[in-house]
C-alpha cells in the first residue's frame, strides 16, 4: 500500500511547485472558458495561467508551530510539510504516520488538540499519485489554537488509516468522506455510506463523477451538464 518514492511525503507535498487541478489535465490553466473546440473566437483561448498553491515553509515556522513540528518529529522521525497561509497552519503528513501523528497531537501536553472538527475530502485529479486528500481540522481548546492535518492517497489505492480510535467523532465524518470520495478508512468500525443511498454507485463529490443532468433539447441541440458547459474558470 506504500510506494517507496512517496516515503518522504512531507517534502514531496511541498506545494510550492505543485499546481492545482484545472479540469483539463495537469499543468497551467489554458483558455478562459474551460471547454475547448467550441469555436471560441474571443482570443482568450491562448491565455495561459499557472496556478500556484501556497508553498511550504522552512524552519523556523514561528510561534508554537516549531514545537508542534518537533513533537511530531519525535514520534514519526520525519519532518512534516508545513504550510502557513493566511495565518492557518497545515501539516502535510504521510498516511503511514497519520494515527501516530493524531495521537501525539491529541495527547502531548504541549499540543493538546483534543477536539477534532471533522475530515473533509478534496479530489485533485491532476495530482498524479496523490489524487485524494483528506483534511482534518483540529482544535486545541487548552491552548486555543487550530491546526490542519492533510494527508493524501493515490486514486489506485484509496486507503487511509481510520482515526476513529483517536477521535471517535470522526465516525460519521469518515463515512461521509468515503461516501463522497471513495476514500477507504481502514479500521473504521462500520464504513458504510451515510448520505447517499446504500446501493448508490460511485462517489458523487469526485471531480470525475459524471454530472449527467436531463438533456434539454432546443432546435436540435441539447444543454450539456454543468461540468461540460462553457463557463469562466
Amino acid at each position: 500500500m506504500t510506494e517507496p518514492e512517496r516515503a518522504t511525503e512531507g517534502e514531496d507535498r511541498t506545494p510550492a511547485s505543485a499546481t492545482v487541478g484545472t479540469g483539463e489535465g495537469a499543468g497551467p490553466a489554458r483558455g478562459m472558458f474551460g471547454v475547448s473546440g467550441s469555436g471560441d473566437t474571443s482570443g482568450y483561448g491562448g491565455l495561459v495561467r499557472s496556478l500556484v498553491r501556497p508553498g511550504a515553509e522552512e524552519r523556523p515556522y514561528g510561534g508554537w508551530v516549531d514545537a508542534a513540528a518537533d513533537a511530531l518529529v519525535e514520534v514519526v522521525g520525519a519532518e512534516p510539510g508545513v504550510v502557513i497561509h493566511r495565518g492557518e497552519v497545515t501539516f502535510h503528513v504521510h498516511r503511514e504516520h497519520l494515527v501516530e501523528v493524531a495521537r501525539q497531537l491529541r495527547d502531548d501536553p504541549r499540543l493538546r488538540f483534543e477536539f477534532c472538527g471533522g475530515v473533509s475530502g478534496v479530489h485533485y485529479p491532476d495530482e498524479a499519485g496523490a489524487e485524494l486528500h483528506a483534511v482534518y481540522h483540529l482544535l486545541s481548546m487548552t491552548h486555543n489554537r487550530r491546526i490542519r492535518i492533510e494527508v493524501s492517497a493515490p486514486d489506485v489505492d484509496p486507503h487511509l488509516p481510520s482515526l476513529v480510535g483517536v477521535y471517535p467523532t470522526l465516525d460519521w465524518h469518515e463515512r461521509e468522506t468515503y461516501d463522497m470520495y471513495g476514500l477507504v478508512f481502514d479500521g473504521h468500525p462500520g464504513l458504510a455510506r451515510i448520505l447517499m443511498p446504500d446501493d448508490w454507485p460511485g462517489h458523487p463529490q469526485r471531480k470525475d463523477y459524471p454530472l449527467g443532468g436531463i438533456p434539454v433539447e432546443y432546435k436540435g441541440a441539447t444543454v450539456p451538464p454543468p461540468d461540460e458547459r462553457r463557463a469562466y474558470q
Partner: protein
Amino acid sequence: MTTETHPGTDFTEAGFDTSEGRVFTVSGQDWDTLTEELSDHADERIVVNMGPQHPSTHGVLRLILELEGETVTEARCGIGYLHTGIEKNLEYRTWTQGTTFVTRMDYLAPLFNEATYCFGVERLLDIEDDIPEKAQVLRVLLMELNRISSHLVCLATGGMELGALTVMTCGFRERELVLDLFELITGLRMNHAYVRPGGVAQDLPDGALEEIRDFITLMKKRLPEYAALCNANPIFKGRLVGVGHLDLEGCLALGLSGPVLRSTGYPWDLRKTQPYCGYEDYDFDVITWDTCDAYGRFRIRLAEMWESLRIVEQATDRLAGLVGAPVMVADKKIAWPAQLAVGSDGLGNSLDHIRHIMGESMEALIHHFKLVTEGFRVPAGQAYAAIEGPRGELGAHVVSDGGTRPFRVHFRDPSFTNLQATSVMSEGGMIADVIVAIASIDPVMGGVDR
C-alpha cells in the same frame, strides 16, 4: 427484523414474516391488532423503526431503536434523506453565488451559514481587515437575531415533542417577529443570501432600527414568560432533568460543541475564545450549566437568547451612528456592482445604478457584466472559518484553485456531528426519553444532510 417491503405485502397491520423475524407496520389506530399479534412474541427483542417521517424526529431523521420493554438497548440514526448535494453544486457557481446555496443548508440558521462561508472566502481573498465596520455590525446583528429565532424553534419543537403545545405556539409566535425583521432587512424570511463575500447585499432600509428596538422591547417582556412557564414546571423538569446525559469527556470525544458542550459547565464559545466579526467589542456572557442534561441545555438556550438580545441592542446602537456608511468592501473588483432598491414591482436593481451603467458609463457596464457573469478570482489555497452557530461550531472548509468558482467547500455542520451522540445519550433510557435527548441536541436535518 427489518422494514423492507416484500412482494405481496400491502402494508396492512397484520405482520408478515421475514428471514429476520416478523415485521409489523404501525400507522396508528391499530394497536389492538398489534398487541394481539404480538402476544406470542412478547419475550423477543423488538426493533422499532421510527421515522424518517415522524413529527418527533426533527425532520427526516430515521431512528432504529432496539427495545426491551420500554427500555432502549440500542439506538442508531439513519440520515441522508435530505441530502441535496449543496457542496457539489457550489463547485459550478461563482464565489458570490455560493451564498445562495449555503444559506439553504441549516435552514434555521441561514445567516450563520452565509457568514461562515464568507469569512472563509474573505480569508482566502485576504480582505478580512477591509470589510467595512457597518457590514460587520450588520452581520453580528443578523446572526444574533438568527440565534434567537433558531433557539425559539428549538424550544418550540422541543416543547411540542413533550406535549407542551403552548411552548410551541409561543415559540413560533416570537420567531415570526424575527422573520419579519429578516424580511424587512434582507428581503426574505429564509434563504437570504444577504451576507456576501466583501460585506452584505444592501444597507438597512428606512425604519429598520425602530422596528428592531420595538422587537427588543417586546422580547424583554416575552422571554420571562418562557421562564415562568417552563423553568420550574414539574412536568417539564420531570421530562428533562437527568435525560440525555453527556459529560465533558464524552462531548470532546464525540466532537460536540454549542449548548451541549456548555451544559457540562465548560464555557467554550467561539465568540469569546476566538472572536470574529468584531465580537470582542460586544458585552455579553457565555452561559453554562453544570448538569450535563437536557434541562441544562434548555436553560442555556433560554439564557443565550437574553445574551443575544443584549448584543442586538448594542449592534442597533452602533448602527444608529453608522447611517450612510458603506456595507461592501471598497475594492470594486470584488464588491457586487448592483445596488438594490425596492421599486413598485418589488426588490431589484436600483434605477440609479441602471441609469449609470446603461446611460452614462460604458466601463461601468463592462465592469458590471464581467463581475456578474464571470465573478472574481480567489487566490489558490484553503481556509477553515469556524463560528459559533446556534448548535455549536459551524465551520466552512473553503478550497480554491485560483479560479472564479470554489474548488471545494465543505461544511462542518454542528448538527451532523452532534447527532452522533444519539446512541450515548439514549441507550439504557426509556423510549420516550430518546425524543427528549434528540430535541436537546437540536439537530436540523438540512444541516446534517446538506
